[in-house]
């Protein structure tokens, strides 16, 4: 989107930015609709079921049918609930899950806000996502949602620590917190990607795996979906939600998952770069080159979403103490060692 020359006129600038934001929101919404379907289809396929296949060809319109169903249902607010906070919680979840997309580089220059603290911004926004859950759980004024909210808060705060350290290794390697710069530096084939670049692969590949597991915990995905574990807490913090409010919570959850899938490909797997040197696109018209880059970005993000869906289908749910042990006793020390090693390599290594 940066390819458009910005006008100096603040009004035109505002309108252009607003247009870009709307475009991204619409694209992300449609992506999430199909991603939910893909999630259900993959889950079904692992269990030798067909999954949703009635609405539209291959059930492609299932998510839109669900959307209509949720919107047309009655919104029930429990009588003991704190009405304002109860309704604010899903809105906050959705707003923050979409706000994070502002710094996501989709293709060279295709980013709404090229912040030079992009990584920190993402960390900040994802740490705010917990408020939707914790407020929803408390405002429901009910036992199960409250327990779910407490679990979720503890879980997300714990895993944010290890995610933070893993992000620091990437920042140390690239020397920048700007996501576009981080992607630019992974140019020229998969052996330049942060996860596979040769001397640091020893540290960075395990780091990328840890990032994947941590973001599963951060987004409350199975096997770490303890805030909504149906066998223990019915549906956790979502118990009292119905209709559009529930729809918004689900939307925020899946938007966050897609965001994290994009983020892991940006940080570790080269973002929009092809896995082989693609200097030949320099002769292409710019729009074709951008679409080529966008294609690789989408392929990588979708690959990671496929992995997320497979993990949901295959891995049994963790117990809560096991989750905490993994976060604090395994990932935190391991990522700390990773930070030390990468920092040492940056100072004393070949590129120092």
């Amino acid at each position, binding site marked *: 989107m940066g390819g458009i020359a910005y006008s100096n006129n603040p009004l035109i600038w505002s309108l252009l930015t607003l247009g870009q934001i709307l475009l991204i929101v619409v694209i992300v919404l449609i992506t999430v609709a199909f991603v939910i379907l893909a999630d259900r289809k993959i889950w079904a396929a692992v269990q030798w079921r067909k999954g949703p296949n009635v609405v539209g060809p291959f059930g492609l319109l299932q998510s839109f049918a669900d959307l209509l169903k949720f919107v047309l249902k009655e919104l029930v607010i429990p009588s003991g609930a704190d009405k304002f*906070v109860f309704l604010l919680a899903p809105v906050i979840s959705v707003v923050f899950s979409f706000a994070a997309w502002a710094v996501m580089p989709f293709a060279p220059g295709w980013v709404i806000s090229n912040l030079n603290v992009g990584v*920190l911004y993402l960390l900040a926004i994802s740490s705010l996502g917990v408020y939707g859950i914790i407020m929803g759980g408390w405002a429901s004024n009910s036992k199960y949602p409250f327990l779910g909210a407490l679990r979720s808060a503890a879980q997300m705060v714990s895993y*944010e620590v290890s995610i933070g350290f893993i992000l620091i290794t990437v920042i140390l390697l690239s020397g920048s917190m700007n996501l576009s710069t981080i992607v630019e530096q992974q140019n020229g084939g998969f052996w330049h990607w942060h996860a596979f670049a040769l001397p640091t692969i020893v540290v960075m590949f395990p780091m990328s795996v840890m990032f994947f597991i941590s973001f599963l915990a951060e987004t409350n995905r199975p096997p770490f979906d303890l805030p909504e574990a149906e066998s223990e807490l019915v549906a956790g913090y979502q118990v009292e939600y119905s209709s559009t409010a529930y729809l918004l919570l689900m939307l925020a959850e899946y938007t966050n998952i897609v965001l994290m899938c994009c983020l892991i490909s940006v940080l570790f797997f080269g973002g929009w770069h092809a896995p082989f040197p693609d200097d030949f696109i320099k002769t292409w018209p710019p729009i074709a080159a951008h679409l080529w880059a966008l294609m690789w970005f989408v392929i990588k993000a979708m690959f990671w979403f496929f992995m997320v869906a497979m993990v949901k289908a295959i891995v049994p749910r963790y117990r809560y*103490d*096991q989750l905490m042990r993994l976060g604090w006793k395994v990932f935190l020390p391991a990522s700390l060692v990773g930070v030390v090693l990468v920092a040492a390599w940056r100072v004393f290594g070949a590129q120092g």
Partner: protein
Amino acid sequence: MQAVAFYILALVSVAAAFLVITAKNPVHSVLYLITVFFSAAGLFVLLGAEFLAMLLVVVYVGAVAVLFLFVVMMLDVDFAQFREGFARYLPLGGVVGAVLLTEIILVAMTVAHTGAAAKNALPMASAPGVSNTEAIGQVLYTDYFYLFQASGLVLLVAMIGAIVLTLRHRPGVRRQNIAKQVARTPKTGMTIVQIKPGEGVSE
């Protein structure tokens, strides 16, 4: 444009700070406090200190306030009880408040007349081409290195203190040893016994 953003953020933060004190429900107070933090982060961005703004959000909003909310939510609060001691504690609270207010006014006056603000200097005048993240890092890890390490030690001591206060060893607790569980094989975990008809299994 910047002035409009400043006044909106300033107004929101002052109004929310007021509501922190007046809100009847402590959970609402914490939520207003989060609003204050968030608008303060916005003000930092307007000053050109985006690194500090993000840190404020990550540390205060993302971690400290969550734990605040955590604790406040679990309190079983009797709202009527809150009002009871109001008149009794009013003098003491008033004195503390007055002292704090005087200090703030004194500091603000000093800064306005003699500090950087009097010379109309930028809050963080850094060399061109150096982002303020780098500028802060260069100052923090060179000139103020010992102070920085000392503040880290203070936090470490606080953390160890909290752990020592709550640590208790309970004897006889069976802990899960995941490595041991994973290392189990059929050979160590089971024995195959040939049972003749009409006999039971006996060790």
